[in-house]
Every structure is written in structure tokens, then in C-alpha cells.
């Protein structure tokens, strides 16, 4: 049980770098040891060969036969509602949080600072209360 996600026909992958970075694709067929035929009809990626290195496998698998037409890939994608499921995963949320952080303006950073300060103060207050309780006992 070392590997849990396998490269198979229908496996949905996230492209980590390259011209289509950040998009989801489905593996349609395997070309050779390094490349796969890949298609992302609902994410704006044309059917093309793509090296495995730039793909990161997700938990989602679609059901279609190998070398299926784009039409069938799209049907399977929409049936499983991959786009919605993806945005609900923690992975996608972390990516979004990272992007938001990079886009912060000076005012946003100030707001974050104030919010963190308030939060830490509350936490510290509770911790101190608990400490007091245990020390009293």
C-alpha cells in the first residue's frame, strides 16, 4: 500500500507546470513510458500528448474506454461533475488560498495582521485560563 493513485484510463490529473498549469485533464491513453494522451474538454485543454512529469494524479477516475472521443470524455466528466468536486477538495482550496495570499495588497495584509492578533489573543486567554486551573489543582 505504497501507492494509492495509479495512472489509468480515465484518471483525472492536475497539471502542475507548463502552458496549461493549474488545469485538470483526464488521461485518455498511454503513449509510452513518459507520455500520455490527455484531454480536458471542460477545462480548456486540447487533446494532446503530455508528459507524466507535469501531471499530478487526483483521486478522481472517470469511466470511458481508452482512446475515446473528446465527446465521450466530456460526457463522463460532466456526469461525475468533476469541476464541482475538485473545487470542494482541500487541494483546490489550498491552491486558491495561496493565490489569494500572493495577490494581497498592503491594506489586506493589515487586515490579516489585525485578525491574527485578535485570534491569538483569544487563544492565549483560554490557554491561560486552563493553565490557571491546572496550577490551582
Amino acid at each position, binding site marked *: 500500500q505504497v501507492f494509492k493513485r495509479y495512472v489509468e484510463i480515465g484518471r483525472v490529473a492536475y497539471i502542475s507546470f507548463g502552458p496549461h498549469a493549474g488545469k485538470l485533464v483526464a488521461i485518455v491513453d498511454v503513449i509510452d513510458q513518459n507520455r500520455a494522451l490527455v484531454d480536458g474538454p471542460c477545462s480548456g485543454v486540447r487533446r494532446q500528448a503530455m508528459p507524466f512529469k507535469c501531471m499530478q494524479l487526483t483521486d478522481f477516475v472517470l469511466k470511458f474506454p481508452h482512446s475515446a472521443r473528446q465527446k465521450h470524455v466530456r460526457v463522463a466528466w460532466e456526469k461525475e461533475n468533476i469541476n464541482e468536486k475538485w473545487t470542494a477538495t482541500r487541494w483546490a482550496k489550498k491552491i486558491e488560498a495561496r493565490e489569494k495570499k500572493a495577490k494581497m*495588497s*498592503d*491594506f489586506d495584509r*493589515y487586515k490579516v495582521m489585525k485578525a491574527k492578533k485578535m485570534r491569538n489573543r483569544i487563544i492565549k486567554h483560554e490557554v491561560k485560563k486552563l493553565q490557571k486551573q491546572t496550577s490551582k489543582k
Partner: protein
Amino acid sequence: MAGEQKAGVKKAKKPKKHHASRNPVLARGIGKYSRSAMYARKAMYKRKYEAPETKIEKKKREKAPATLTKPVGGDKNGGNRVVKVRKMPRYYPTEDVPRKLLSHGKKPFCQHKRKLRASITPGTVLIILTGRHRGKRVVFLKQLASGLLLVTGPLVINRVPLRRTHQKFVIATSTNVDISGVKLPKHLTDAYFKKKRLRKPKHQE
């Protein structure tokens, strides 16, 4: 077009279609016919126009009088003499164009062109980088005549008063505060903020 003809009897002609170029091209930029040949081909001898003289041009034509008659005073009193209004120059310099002064085109500081970065508009929050208030975020009000920026904390928020700062030593953030309702008093100029010397001229020997 038919409707136009019925309605406006004043317009006798229809707008004519323009002829293509009467000068066939031999190569780019070179026509077959010369200027005089084209003059004849285009029948420019029939098409000489002159715009009617406007009132302004007429007024321009009315020249100022060239001579004036003035009464003779002093010794040879009485009688008149004719005086030219515009006299001939008494000196012709050897150089055609007078040499420019070394200070030509060099303006004093008060006449310099003031520039302001596009990112700085009234209400922008600026970060001050130098001075005793370095690191503080401050609201931009306006650019003064000397080019310095008038800026305020506001005082109650970060103890930065109405103050002048230099554009170069400031970071403009993208945050903007709506300052349209603020009326800046007229007395806030460079002279108001300029450092004054306290003079005590008590020369005692």
C-alpha cells in the same frame, strides 16, 4: 435623393461622383503625366476658386496709418510736421541671429514642471520611508506648488500632522480613501510649511 430634389429647389446639382486619378501610375510614386500635362487634363484652367474675403481678413487689410502729423512746438512754433510711425532701424547687427544667453532655457525652480506619479491620486494611502515618521501609512491630500506632497496621518490615528513629503521617498499603495468631501483650506501652501528663522537682531558690542 429624389426626395431631396423635390424638397430643396435651391440645390440644382446632385453631389457629383469624383473621378479616379487621371494620372496612370508607371511605378510607385511616378505618374505618366507631368504637372503641366495634369493641369490641362484636370481642366484646372476652368476651376480657379477664391474664397470670399471674410470680415476678419478685411479688417486685417485696413492697415494702421504709416505716418502721423504732429504740431511743431518749441522754437519754430506753429505749423505741422509729418512723422513716420515706424522708423527705419538705426543699427544693423553683423550677426543674423542673436546669440542665445548661456542661461537660455534654464528656468528657476519656481517655474519648473511638476510631475506626479500616476499611482498617487488624492486619497491614496502612502507609506512614508524616511524621516521621523518612517514606516507609517498616511493619506495623500494634494501636490503643492513646489512639487512636494501634502500629507496627513490623520493626526488622531498615527500622530502624523499635516506635513509635506517628497514623492521619491514614498511608496504609493493601491488603497484609496474617498476624499472628495474634504475641503482643503486655501492657506495651506509651501509658504505656510516653510521653516522660519527666528531673528533676534540684538547686536551688542
